[in-house]
């Protein structure tokens, strides 16, 4: 568009005749045109708005702003409609001070690291306090077993345990197949096919079943704990419970903790079974170890101790998942964004600490020669 479309400037009469639509849609074009026109650097300038069909706040802003930059030039508006005059006046009033933002305080590298470390420390301290509170609440409820909310417990067991059966079964079956395949390739070279039973049994019962089930549950259940409690927090449901004298710990947190504490060991046994079945199927196919000889050898070489050691990890993992999930949920404040951030944190932290705990337990078991 040519400058003539929006205004004509007459140097002799010092008059600028504006016309057309001075709105957001044509803002860039008008600004371009204004920049191309040479205006006098000082003196007076009349801006005539007779031909302006539309003037919105963006147009009014441009008109004000552009001529404000030429400090020695005094402008006045004429022939604008009364509403347009009013708009121009409001905009002029509001832009008297330059539109600048408050400065952002930049923190240097050490400052950022320090802040991060401090915040993580505070988080950790809060987490410990949270665990303490939960423990106290649990003890208080144990003294009055009539207050236990069995219904909530069973609901959690159903949603985090029963409904996870298929996915855990499928996952364990495949893990059994995969491990057998990889180990079988090596064993076959030595003709030690039948030793697959020893290897698979120990690997599944002691490590894979508890660890993978826990990781799966951290993703499936831990995240849902955080998201549920977090949304309730935002919706002030948690506050509502507090004002009604119902402790959120008893209604929301402990059932989740207890439910997972019951569900996870059961799921681990379930995973043990399907992991071994997966391995058995693969051993039959690939290594020609029939299921009869597989099971026969299984009961003679795999001690019950392995099963118990594996299962003993499950309650620890359950406590990690549920306490982190609930803690992050209770930490949610302000808005949807926060729910997402805390849910991610909950899963990442839970998986991290599951693996840390698993490593620590391995060291512990080896020290006691278990």
């Amino acid at each position: 568009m040519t400058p003539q479309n929006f205004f004509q400037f007459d140097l002799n009469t010092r008059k600028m005749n504006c016309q057309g639509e001075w709105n957001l849609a044509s803002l860039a074009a008008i600004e371009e045109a204004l920049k191309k026109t040479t205006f006098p650097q000082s003196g007076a300038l009349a801006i005539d708005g007779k031909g302006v069909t539309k003037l919105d706040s963006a147009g009014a802003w441009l008109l004000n702003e552009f001529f404000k930059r030429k400090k020695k030039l005094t402008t006045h508006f004429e022939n604008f409609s009364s509403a347009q005059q009013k708009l121009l006046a409001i905009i002029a009033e509001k832009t008297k001070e330059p539109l600048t933002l408050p400065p952002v305080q930049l923190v240097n590298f050490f400052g950022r690291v320090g802040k991060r470390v401090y915040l993580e420390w505070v988080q950790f301290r809060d987490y410990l306090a949270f665990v303490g509170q939960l423990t106290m609440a649990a003890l208080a409820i144990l003294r009055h077993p009539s207050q236990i909310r069995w219904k909530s417990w069973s609901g959690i067991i159903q949603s985090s345990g029963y409904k996870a059966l298929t996915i855990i079964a499928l996952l364990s079956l495949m893990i059994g197949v995969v491990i057998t395949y990889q180990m079988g390739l090596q064993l076959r070279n030595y003709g030690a096919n039948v030793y697959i039973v020893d290897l698979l049994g120990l690997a599944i019962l002691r490590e894979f079943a508890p660890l993978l089930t826990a990781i799966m549950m951290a993703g499936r259940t831990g995240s849902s704990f955080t998201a549920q409690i977090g949304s309730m927090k935002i919706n002030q449901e948690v506050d509502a419970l507090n004002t009604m004298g119902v402790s959120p710990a008893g209604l929301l947190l402990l059932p989740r903790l207890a439910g997972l504490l019951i569900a996870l060991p059961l799921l681990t046994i379930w995973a043990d079974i399907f992991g071994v079945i997966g391995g058995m199927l693969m051993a039959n196919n690939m290594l020609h170890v029939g299921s009869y000889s597989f099971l026969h050898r299984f009961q003679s070489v795999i001690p019950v101790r392995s099963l118990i050691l594996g299962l003993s990890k499950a309650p620890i993992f359950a406590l990690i998942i549920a306490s982190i999930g609930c803690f992050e949920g209770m930490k949610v404040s302000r808005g949807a964004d926060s729910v997402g951030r805390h849910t991610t944190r909950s899963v990442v932290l839970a998986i991290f600490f599951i693996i840390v705990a698993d490593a620590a337990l391995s060291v512990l078991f080896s020290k006691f020669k278990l």
Partner: protein
Amino acid sequence: MTKNEIIVDVKNIKTCLGNMLVHTDVSFSVRRGEVFAIVGGSGSGKTTILREILALQKPVSGSIRIFDKEVIKANPATLLAIQKRIGVLFQQNALFSSLNLLENVEFPLKEHTKLDPQTIRELALLKILLVGLPLSAARRYPAELSGGMQKRAGLARALVLDPELLFLDEPTSGLDPNSAAELDELILDFQATLGLTIVMVTHDLESLWRVTNQVAFLGDGQVLDVSPINEIIKNKQPLIQKFFNGPRGRGAQEAYGN
């Protein structure tokens, strides 16, 4: 662009939500420059009709035209063209919680204009000032703003594209009387200076008296009356009488009616 041009035209809208018939036959039209209020008891489908006008929800039958273009069966391009000319302030403000105030207000400009970042920033800051927020709030996140400030922020975002038509869903709900009154004044100011047409859903009897030109009363699934506030209160229809002649209705009437 005549003064009496109809810019929102709702005809024979019928809506079912689940098994419930919300609107049997709703029709009204809004003319340019009006402040048009939709009122009615709870559950009368005020917000539903607003959502339908905004194409967030589809009615069973009927027609809705904005700027003389059909909304219900509009293709995406037509709809976008309409959407660029309207602004909406939602009941809960619907500010993006992951963006700060300035970014929230800049967002429509960034999406729909090709202006340079500096201009976008200044226009957004101008809108923030126009709705009466301090510049120091620009970098704060929605959750760090008070309810009244959030409302203003939502209004700034709704106005940033300089729309011709503004939709307000219960703009004064949840505000203290002072903030509500200030918001009313703000709405009147914008309407006068920017030539806005405003469609609002409200319960607030004081703002009905203070800012509106036309009031449409929804009840029994239809529009029972459309008239200026001082006439609609004289309507003998029992639902309307109950709405306006309760103790609160009469208070507002005494304060503004004369």
